[in-house]
């Protein structure tokens, strides 16, 4: 069981709760969602508590992440898209913190659960749809009919556009989920090699050096992936919001 690389994704109940026959137990996943929110909001709250004109190190990290997302959103969706700033910022910080917390050994990775990433992706897509139809009415459908396409090709292009739009929540959620899952499984497998090889005597210990180095390198790579996936999630959110803000233009 200890060497099962999927064991780390096991969700188990800490406080069983059931409302109306549906399971709402407080699980280890819930615990780490709470931890993620506590870490992220605690960091952002306390680092900016002094409101320093000259920022401390921590405050400038918080400011950097703010400006990072602000410029990303402004580039992606224009200044009209800035009303979605709290949403993109929350998504980025939540995903980033969840990914980074997952890097601690024995910690549960919230974003390695497809249901979580899918819920976040659906939140983005529903926001795009609802705001798009609210802002542009039926003109929002022109997103699916790019300007300058010959009439003959329009049905084909539109169906491709619709399929690509529908696949957005899937690609958005699966990308994050699969990256986190695969990275953690790979780490676990390589780390497992170290343990099992070093149990085979002197030769095994010598041979275990290779997977150990691999594990170290993978850990570094996983930190990069943790940031990169949060970044990609935020960038794509900005791009999708651009459709909602500007319609099909």
């Amino acid at each position, binding site marked *: 069981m200890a060497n099962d690389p999927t064991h780390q994704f096991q969700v188990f109940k800490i406080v069983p709760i059931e409302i109306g026959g549906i399971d709402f137990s407080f699980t280890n996943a*819930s615990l780490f969602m709470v931890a993620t929110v506590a870490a992220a909001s605690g960091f952002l709250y306390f680092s900016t508590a002094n409101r320093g004109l000259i920022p401390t190190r921590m405050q400038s990290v918080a400011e950097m992440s703010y400006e990072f997302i602000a410029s990303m959103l402004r580039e992606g969706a224009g200044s009209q898209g800035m009303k979605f700033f709290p949403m993109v910022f929350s998504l980025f910080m939540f995903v980033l913190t969840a990914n980074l917390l997952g890097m601690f050994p024995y910690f549960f990775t919230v974003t390695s659960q497809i249901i979580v990433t899918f819920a976040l992706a659906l939140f983005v897509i529903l926001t795009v749809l609802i705001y798009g139809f609210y802002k542009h009415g039926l003109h929002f459908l022109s997103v699916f009919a790019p300007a300058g396409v010959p009439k003959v090709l329009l049905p084909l292009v539109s169906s491709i556009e619709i399929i690509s739009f529908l696949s957005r929540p899937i690609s958005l959620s699966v990308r994050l989920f699969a990256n986190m899952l695969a990275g953690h499984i790979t780490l676990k497998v390589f780390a497992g090699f170290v343990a099992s090889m070093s149990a085979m005597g002197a030769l095994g210990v010598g041979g275990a050096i290779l997977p150990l180095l691999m594990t170290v390198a993978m850990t570094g790579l996983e930190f990069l992936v943790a940031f990169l996936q949060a970044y990609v999630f935020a960038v794509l959110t900005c791009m999708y919001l651009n459709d909602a803000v500007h319609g099909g233009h």
Partner: protein
Amino acid sequence: MFVTPAFAQGAPANGDPNAATGTAPAAEVHTETGVAHDAHATGVFPPFDHTTYSSQLLWLVITFGFFYWIMQKVVVPRVGGILEHRHDRIAQDLDEASRLKAEADAAVETYEKELASARAKAGTIAETAREAARAKAAADRAAIETELSEKIAAAEASIATIKAQAFAEVGAIAEEAAGAIVEQLIGPKASAEDVRAAVASAKVEA
């Protein structure tokens, strides 16, 4: 009914949860729960275990909702405020700096203007002084020249007087010398009137 437990144990081993479907309603229910229980322990890949989805979704909504609320109500306005405040402060400081620079420029300009006027004033003063000195020198020279010419004139006058006197005395000396010569040559003393007349005629001839 006695077959049911066996079925329940057998179904997960087959890995086909639908194996019991259609045999008996009671057996089906039993089998389904058995599979679900087994799956939770080992079988299904954990992220695809849909029995955990409802609780994960609920807690995600609670935690992310709270996070979103905190971000929107507290963190985003605060960080935005800090950045705006800093931006304003920098703009204000830049304004202050440009105002001070303008002031310094004005001061430099006044200074240069004053320097130029002082230089001009100094030039005038020097010019006046030079003029005054030149005038004084000219006056002095004129005074000295007049004085000198006066002295020259006086000297010439005295020379003329002395010359006249000398000429007058030349007659007397010549008379005396002529009287003495006549006395030596002839013997008797010649009268003063004769000598004077002879000298006078000689003077006229000379």
